[in-house]
């Protein structure tokens, strides 16, 4: 069935590739947002109380689908960070490190339960604040966040088992800076293991998506978590820098861009602070000719268009065996037309809003680069809303490793299609990047899965599936995608004094 043509255009052969005409159109099905109320203004959460920022300044958080302001949050500065660190230190010394491990665990179980109870509210706020479809925040982000707390709650009184004969002591106070792509989930990934291991925390959510972390703070109050165990300081880059630089912090955990990660690593060098980093990626999603092709198409679509492509482990490079390139491109061309782009609160939306104007500009710039470099642009004909930051699902064919769009992380719904001939070549191209977060392998042959997996320099390998996450499954990168793992037993190690970690000598 495959022709020898590689340079396909948008006019692909076949009876089923017409842009969709008016057919059975789904009416809007908007998730209700009237069963809860957001406060117009949120303060900082320090020592179990809502505290006004030292500067008195607040900034707006905007709904990227409508470009309207949803709420105002406090702008924390170095003085606020200092107060938060002091509160965390006091809570650590006086309460948290003295508490029986099983009791610590029971607090974390409570948090998990209350997230489940307020699940719908959290999901709606996540979609309003960040732009992701309600279908995803409801079915992926919130349930995984609760599950993460459940899993780590159970570790609190079992740490010795995880440490296999070594002691299990916490580090002290952890400073955590999280990104805007999975705001609540990233808060869960950071807080749960830190607390389970007996540390206290100062957390800074991303400046474009602070709200679910602040609702989480309300939940922590409801759970009667001892004051100061978790402190939340909202703000932008300067606030994050204040946390990274604060001498009273024992450990920094950062998820975000590789560029900022490197800055943090430089800043911490020479101190006794421990560090884990979860940075960017440019994952290869590798499809062999013997793959279950229709399921591979779903895996590719999910790999790059889930969460608008704002995913560090996104399958942003499709490496396809040359003999099935044309079939796959034909199926992808058709498939992207059924992706529904629009209102994140519509239950039928598949691709929501781009998180911010800045991110939209970056995507547009890189797509323009791809076009000017001579790659062929394929884009869905989805009608984008008049307001808001939206981008249609896109892929490029005729891409080679040397193109910018094959090398730079776009962090948007844009896929680059590259061909290979043999498994060796696939491995070579997949590994030919400074990143190493994830990879996908599509083949019906199990032995080939293991052969490829062994050779791929990536921390997470998905075989015949993609974008699967579980609290028990360690996640993290090789190379410039960062170091340290989140999830499972490996996720405890960054928060224990006697486990190996990086960027600092062992403190005794």
């Amino acid at each position: 069935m495959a022709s020898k043509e590689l340079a396909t255009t948008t006019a692909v052969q076949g009876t089923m590739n017409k842009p969709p005409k008016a057919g059975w159109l789904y009416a809007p099905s908007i998730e209700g947002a009237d069963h809860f109320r957001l406060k117009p203004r949120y303060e900082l959460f320090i020592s179990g109380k809502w505290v006004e920022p030292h500067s008195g300044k607040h900034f707006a958080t905007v709904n990227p689908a409508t470009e309207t302001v949803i709420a105002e949050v406090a702008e924390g500065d170095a003085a606020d960070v200092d107060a938060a660190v002091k509160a965390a230190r006091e809570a650590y010394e006086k309460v948290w490190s003295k508490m029986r491990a099983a009791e610590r665990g029971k607090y974390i179980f409570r948090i998990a339960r209350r997230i489940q109870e307020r699940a719908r509210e959290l999901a709606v706020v996540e979609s309003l604040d960040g732009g992701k479809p309600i279908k995803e925040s409801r079915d992926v982000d919130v349930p995984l966040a609760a599950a993460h707390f459940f899993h780590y709650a159970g570790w609190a009184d079992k740490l010795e088992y995880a440490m296999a004969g070594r002691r299990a002591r916490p580090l002290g106070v952890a400073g955590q800076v999280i990104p805007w792509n999975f705001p609540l989930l990233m808060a869960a990934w950071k807080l749960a293991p830190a607390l389970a291991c007996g540390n206290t925390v100062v957390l800074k959510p991303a400046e474009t998506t602070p709200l679910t972390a602040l609702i989480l703070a309300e939940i922590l109050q409801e759970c009667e978590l001892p004051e100061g165990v978790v402190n939340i300081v909202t703000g932008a880059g300067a606030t994050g820098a204040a946390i990274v630089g604060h001498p009273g912090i024992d450990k920094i955990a950062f998820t975000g861009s590789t560029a900022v990660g490197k800055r943090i690593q430089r800043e911490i060098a020479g101190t006794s602070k421990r560090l884990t980093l979860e940075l960017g990626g440019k994952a290869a999603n590798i499809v062999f000719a013997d793959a279950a092709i229709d399921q591979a198409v779903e895996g590719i679509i999910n790999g790059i268009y889930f969460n608008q492509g704002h995913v560090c482990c996104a399958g942003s490079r499709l490496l396809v065996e040359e003999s099935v390139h044309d079939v796959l491109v034909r199926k992808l061309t058709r498939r992207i037309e059924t992706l529904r782009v629009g209102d994140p609160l519509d239950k039928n939306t598949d691709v929501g809003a781009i998180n911010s104007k800045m991110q939209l500009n970056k995507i547009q710039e890189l797509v323009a680069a791809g076009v000017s470099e001579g790659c062929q642009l394929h884009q869905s004909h989805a009608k984008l809303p008049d307001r808001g930051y939206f981008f249609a699902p896109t892929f490029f064919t005729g891409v080679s490793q040397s193109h910018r769009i094959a090398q730079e992380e776009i962090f948007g719904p844009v896929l680059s299609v590259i061909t290979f001939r043999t498994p060796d070549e696939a491995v070579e191209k997949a590994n030919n990047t400074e990143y190493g977060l994830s990879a996908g392998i599509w083949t019906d042959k199990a032995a080939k899965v293991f052969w490829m997996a062994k050779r791929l320099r990536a921390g997470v390998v998905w075989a015949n599936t993609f974008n699967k996450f579980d609290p028990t499954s360690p996640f993290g990168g090789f190379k410039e995608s960062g170091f340290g793992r989140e999830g499972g037993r490996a996720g405890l190690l960054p928060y224990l004094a006697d486990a190996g970690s990086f960027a600092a000598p062992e403190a005794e």
Partner: protein
Amino acid sequence: MVTKKRTQSKTSRGRTGTSSALVARNSQDEALHLSTGGVSGRRNYRPPHVPPVEAVGLEERAASLAKRSIKKASKVEGLKMAISMMDLTTLEGKDTPGKVVALCRKALRPHEKLDVPSCAAVCVYPNLVPIAKRALAGSTVKIASVATAFPSGQSPLKVKLEDVRRAVEFGADEIDMVIDRGAFLRGDYGKVFDEIAATKEACGAAHLKVILETGELGTYDAIRLASAIAIEAGGDFIKTSTGKVQPAATLPVTLLMLEVIRDYVDAGWRMIGMKPAGGVRNAKQALQYLCLVNETMGDDWMNPDMFRFGASALLNDVLMQLEAQQTGRYAGEDYFSKD
């Protein structure tokens, strides 16, 4: 063409040999259709090459399509479309003219007050076809008859073809046949192909639906292969189930069969229809199936010529949902005829 039997008897005289062992073996061969070359002479039939199916991914895609939230005008439109796609079915040993006439009336005019289309067809056993024909004379509602020793298919081909011819003679517009699952599972794909081709010939002008009985085939890979064989052998529709075996139709199976059709059409084949049967019990499920067809096949399949529901209890649930959409309150069972 006389072929050697595997165990050679000294008294062998070909097909009408006198030894009882030979007679027994002839009958067995006829039943199992071994080594006689088949109707189309395809002794060395090579089944179509089909790509593998990854079950977890298939089920995830079906589940994600089932999550579509269909409301308001699109819900009303979808429910009406579902009615127009129904093959209202009764296939019971105790079917009588009375039962069938009532069914036909319901198919023709499902509800007195609600503005809904007629069903696509009724589906009955051959003996009841003449009754249906009289009851539906002059209407757009088609008459589908099961045939080929439905539901098991475990009879000689001659008998199965006669079953088809009679049903067509009685007035059936459509024939729903069953494939020989025994032949399929023991690897005799040639027999499966031959029987479909022969049935298609016996149908004449009647259009042929091929029931795969997906609940007996074991894996999605097997269903994919059976679908491909059915299409290549001349089926106009591929259908999931007889409704007599669990599991019957499911969303993943339906999605898979649609994907097979899509691949054939992409390769230049004519358009083939699809029918899930059994297991579609309520309006919500019917809408889920429509989402599947809509997003996998597009507009060209969203009509009764290309997609049907094999159902009985489904109709009333759809009518109740339509009424609820109109009045804003949940309907009660007593307000809808049970025929």
